[in-house]
């Protein structure tokens, strides 16, 4: 149901676009469509506090665009982390139609309304682009826990049901989600322990207090180099491509996928998404879509994706809408399985 309605909405909008383009085409005003430009400062609204993953992503985009003079007006990063980030999207609802506010988030935009009471709905947002994917890796501390491979991890969890501890950032967020997926796929029972941030969780594993954690690569990279953590498997369907050796003669590409290792969880990734409010002028959406594409070509952004071992995949327009619809459906299922759905929407 949901997909069809989304599809209809999408084709309707493109329909309107072509129609208006045709109508004004003869008068030579089509050029205006591509030429929309902000003439005052633009707010880049982040659905997270300063220092977090989404914040760094936004500031990299800001740095890439300003340093390469891709925009003429100032860009201002505004953090709105309230209500797990729903504050940012609620701000979009308050600023319907404003082309001077662009919103940066992850899957939070479409996942938040599933499990919590929020002050916005998906219809309040216009998807602009999805730029990169952060991947998730299962890590252990080989010295303290004796776990060197994903197989050993599963075996240990089977021997001690509910006793093997996995740390992650926050409750009912990406990390806990992937842990529940892992439990179901491998038929194991783990003890998930939430910390405030991914780096805090990583330190707990590096210090040998907890057996394993799930994390984005960059959050545990330094501990891997220092020999305090080891990647067991990556939650993607294909191995990572970066072949530069990181530690112990191992590169990112040498990490087996979790599917290879017998944990059937593939493609659990975190998109870095860009949004605008509802009812914004289509030419503004076109402008920012193009701008984000340009940002991805800058050396600053490329450095960022290399450093974070991200999967670069730019999506916009219909492709993005299909992707979002699929993602929302997946999450609805996971949330229903975990019993995390809001009572009202159950």
């Amino acid at each position, binding site marked *: 149901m949901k997909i069809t309605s989304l599809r209809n909405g999408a084709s309707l909008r493109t329909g309107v676009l072509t129609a208006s383009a045709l109508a004004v085409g003869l008068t030579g005003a089509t050029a205006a469509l591509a030429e929309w430009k902000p003439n005052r400062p633009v707010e880049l609204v982040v659905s997270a506090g*300063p220092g977090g993953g989404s914040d760094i992503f936004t500031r990299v985009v*800001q*740095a890439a665009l300003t340093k390469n003079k891709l925009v003429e007006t100032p*860009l201002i990063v505004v*953090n*709105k982390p*309230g209500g797990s980030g729903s504050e940012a999207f609620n701000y979009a609802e308050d600023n319907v139609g404003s082309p001077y506010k662009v919103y940066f988030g992850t899957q939070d935009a479409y996942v938040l309304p599933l499990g919590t009471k*929020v002050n916005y709905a998906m219809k309040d947002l216009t998807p602009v682009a999805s730029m990169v994917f952060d991947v998730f890796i299962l890590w252990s501390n080989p010295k303290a826990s004796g776990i060197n491979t994903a197989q050993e991890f599963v075996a240990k969890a089977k021997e001690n049901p509910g006793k093997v501890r996995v740390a992650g950032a926050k*409750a009912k967020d990406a990390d806990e989600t992937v842990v529940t997926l892992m439990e179901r796929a491998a038929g194991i029972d783990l003890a998930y322990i939430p910390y405030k941030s991914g780096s805090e969780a990583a330190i707990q594993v590096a210090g040998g207090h907890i057996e394993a954690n799930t994390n984005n690569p960059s959050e545990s990279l330094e501990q891997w180099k220092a020999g305090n953590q080891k990647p067991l498997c990556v939650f993607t369907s294909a191995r990572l491509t970066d072949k530069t050796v990181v530690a112990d003669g191992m590169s990112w590409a040498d990490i087996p996928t979790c599917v290879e290792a017998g944990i059937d969880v593939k493609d659990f990734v975190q998109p870095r998404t860009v949004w605008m409010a509802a009812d914004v002028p289509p030419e503004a959406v076109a402008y920012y879509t193009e701008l984000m594409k340009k940002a991805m070509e800058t050396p600053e952004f490329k450095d960022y994706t290399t*450093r974070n071992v991200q999967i670069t995949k730019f999506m916009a327009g219909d492709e993005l809408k299909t992707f979002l619809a699929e993602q929302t459906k997946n999450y609805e299922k996971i949330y229903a399985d975990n019993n995390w759905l809001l009572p009202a929407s159950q």
Partner: protein
Amino acid sequence: MGNFGQLMDGFVVALTMHHVMIMVIGVLLGLVVGVLPGLGAPNGVSLLLPLTFTMDPIAAIILLTSMYWGALFGGSTTSILFNIPGEPSSVATTFDGHPMAKQGEAVRALTLAFGSAGFGAMVGVVVITLLSGWVANFALQFGSPEYFAVYFMAFASFIGMAGGSPFKTLVCIMLGLAVGTVGMDTISGEGRLTFGITQLTNGISFLIVVIGLFGIGELLLTIDEGYKFEGVKAKLSLRVILRTLAELPRYWVTLLRSALIGCWMGITPGGPTAASFMSYALGRRFSRRGKYFGKGEPEGIVAPETADHSAGSCALLPMLALGVPGSATAAVMMGGLMIWGLSPGPMLFTTRPDFVWGLIASMYLGNVIAVVLVLATVPIFAWILRAPFTVVGPLIAIICLIGAYTVSNHIFDIWVALAFGLVGYVFKKLDYPLAPFVLAVVLGDKAEDAFRQSMLSSGGSLSVFFEGSLVATMMGIGILLLSLPLLTALFGGLFRRGAEEGQTSRP
């Protein structure tokens, strides 16, 4: 010794004209940011971050850390003059700083604060220099039970040391814990005590609580009881400043004790705010003039300020060595580090020694510059104090409200601050101590998380808190601190009776 050689290399990096200029600018910006409550170091640093994108990482981190030092110093200024803590960690400075200023000794109070803060910061930097390698490994030994033990010690020292009615202290702690509970719970991911108000889901910011309790509360009290500010008497002569600086070595016991507490709390996850409270509480207990604490006692300024700044400096070490930010400001700086292309963590010391040691060297210089600059601002602030209350009063009100708004740009927060202003006024009228309340708001949430994480990981057994030698020692000290008043009451009641009465009988 290797560290010393590297530090010298660091000085070569930091001591260029360009970098010294950046330090001066950073400190000045920091002072402005620190003086305005609410704006604070984390906000200031994130405002400045875009400017650093085009700078090289060393200059950029020097700018940001200098701003941090400036903000830490600036935060004490408003604490002393207007009873509004500019930074959360300068709350404890208000306890004696503001009474001193009211008695016409504002210049002396400010000088004492800045002098001891400078000393604390220096001790902190020396600790970083000497122990950087060891500290990183030490910090890795901290699991959730150890975190809890650190918070427990902070609580215990405060409960055990506080004067006044223990019942009132308990009430204040409970209320503080309740305020700290508001918002999203880390462990369950559910909102608590939000009453369906979305603005409350992110919790009540500690800064807003403090602005309300102290700034607005004090303002209401002044209106009620009349203006007794003897700012006119404040002499702004250089001689007062110099004489006060010369007076500082007299407090060497307090200085050393506070610096040690500060370093300990900075390296462990306690942080500067808890350090300043703990140091104040222990100072009150162990100082011969402890019974005068809270009435404008110089040692009551020296203790929290020294601890605050040594903790603030030491807290940068876990950030660099582990990639775990010790404070909100450190979190923003860490984001900056990543944008500049550096990854904080155990390997940073080996991969970029020029950066790490340049930064450490700049901490020595930055703090010296900060002390000099901030002392130079003392006469300006003393001059502000000469204005009549009809001018200063509205000014304070405006600063408080703007401050509450700037914390996260929410109108709702202004109402929260006003509500806490009323709470502060009522507390003071009924003689309920504010300090335990504030401490509970700051640490309650973290202590709870650490406790529940420990319980989850041990399967619900309390014995985790006594299993490791580190955690058992800390818990032991905590319990000892907690029972100290009981013990002294039992064994030394006869000797100390006079002093106890001095503490309990507050006007």
